[in-house]
């Protein structure tokens, strides 16, 4: 009984970073809703992965987190979205920008300035911080991302991976509690993509950031995710822990491919007691699974 009460207390004390409650949105000029009755929560410090086909409504959901919907994109809005307790509809985008760091698909389109350090400082300059504070925070962000040696470089001289780091630093310098990444690996080679995913997990651990990440390649992110939300035609098709989602049937129908290691286990019928999400865990588990 005591255990049950403690569990209930723990669950109720777990703070929610992002809360979608029956959120629907139809863009102005469109008749088909881009998001329909979306309900989910992401706890503080969690890594949530949004997955689904192109055009399934993932970007709409992300835009509703940083306030671009409804403040920039007009349309029919219903339900509610709360970020760190603030109702997005009632909060201006610049206030949300202090809480939500946003990383777009193509980092090239979010690097405005001519040198790396000036670009990282861009958000703080917009907020009117004192030049000394801007310098300190910019240096901190560059050190955190390991890009201090790039400070004076022009964005056009950087590799894709470096641009992604600069864009992340530009978001983190605002000291957000939530980091939203819209397909950050889609333009990267496999090695750099893995590097960005590892970096995301490291930032989640070191800074206690809540991470919401859009990614199709589940094999890249299933090991770092605490929750996977699959979106189809603007609605949530399934959500749960990686184990729950990866064991569900029909993922191929929504355009997702299983991580090879999970596919092997599923084909072998190894479902009981959970599945291993990466090769190392699988190798360790082989004797038990084989029994």
């Amino acid at each position: 009984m005591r255990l049950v009460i403690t569990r209930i207390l723990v669950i109720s004390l777990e703070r929610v970073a992002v809360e979608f409650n029956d959120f629907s949105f139809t863009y102005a000029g469109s008749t088909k809703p881009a998001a329909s009755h979306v309900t989910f929560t992401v706890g503080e410090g969690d890594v949530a992965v949004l997955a689904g086909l192109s055009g399934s409504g993932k970007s709409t959901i992300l835009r509703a987190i940083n306030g671009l919907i409804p403040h920039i994109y007009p349309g029919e809005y219903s339900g509610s979205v709360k970020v760190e307790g603030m109702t997005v509809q009632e909060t201006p985008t610049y206030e949300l920008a202090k809480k939500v760091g946003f990383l777009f698909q193509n980092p090239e389109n979010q690097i405005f300035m001519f040198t790396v350090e000036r670009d990282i400082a861009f958000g703080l300059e917009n907020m009117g911080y004192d030049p000394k504070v801007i310098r300190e925070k910019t240096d901190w962000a560059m050190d955190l991302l390991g890009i201090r040696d790039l400070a004076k470089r022009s964005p056009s001289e950087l590799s894709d991976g470096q641009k992604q780091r600069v864009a992340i630093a530009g978001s983190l310098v605002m000291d957000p509690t939530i980091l939203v990444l819209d397909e950050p690996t889609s333009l990267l080679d496999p090695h750099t993509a893995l590097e960005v995913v590892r970096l995301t997990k490291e930032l989640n651990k070191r800074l206690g950031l809540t991470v919401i990440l859009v990614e199709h390649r589940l094999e890249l992110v299933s090991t770092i995710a605490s929750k996977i939300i699959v979106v189809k035609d603007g609605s949530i098709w399934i959500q749960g822990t990686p184990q729950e989602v990866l064991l569900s049937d029909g993922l191929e129908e929504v355009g997702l491919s299983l991580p090879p290691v999970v596919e092997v286990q599923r084909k072998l019928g190894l479902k009981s007691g959970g599945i291993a999400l990466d090769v190392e865990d699988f190798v360790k588990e082989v004797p038990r699974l084989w029994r």
Partner: protein
Amino acid sequence: MAKAIYEGLKFRYKTTVIHRLDPRVKMLLSIVLFALALLGFNFYQEIITFVLVAVPATLAKSLKRLMRVVALSITFGVFVVAINLLAGGTVVESIVLAVRFLEIVASTSLFFVTTSPDELEYVLRWFRMPRDFVFAFATSIRFVPVLLMDLTQIIDAQKSRGLELDRGGPIKRIRNLVPVLIPLIVNSLVRSGELAEAMESRGYGAVKKPTSMDVLRLKINDWAALSLIIPGGALLIWLYIYVI
């Protein structure tokens, strides 16, 4: 050709005595040289102006690049000579006019090859230009390499589908550009939408007076340069108008 001029004018980070000057001082130097080029009406004045442009360009280790930009502008110089001859000018007058035009190009280019776009933005802000205007101006320069890359990719893609840009007469050649320009404009519009989203996400417009990480301050070398440029420039302008 546009790409070659862009490459010529593109700022490259160097640590020469000219590059280290405050951008406002570099701008003043360029304005004085520009005025001298504009006031030059004979060969002596043109030679003096040429030397005055060449000295800071050499100190900035950028003389070759400047000459390349001037060389690319020679076509326009020839055009100036032809128009002047048609208008009844003498050969000498026409050549002086063309040289004057090339010196104007060189004096303004000196500012751009030694001043980073960041510094240029600071100068515009110092002139109290509206923030939106400065940002739009700076962004348009920042995205020139990106647009050039887009342009190259579109040209390659269209050529691989059979487009022949260099075929036909002048009007046909202009028409040939349509399949290149339309995707370029569409790409740019899509990109501008993403840029606007990114600006919102980074708090653009949050306060009326945004701050800057670096503040322009004149140092000893800037004062030394000013003490040369202001009296020297005034003296030369007077000499150009009344003496030489």
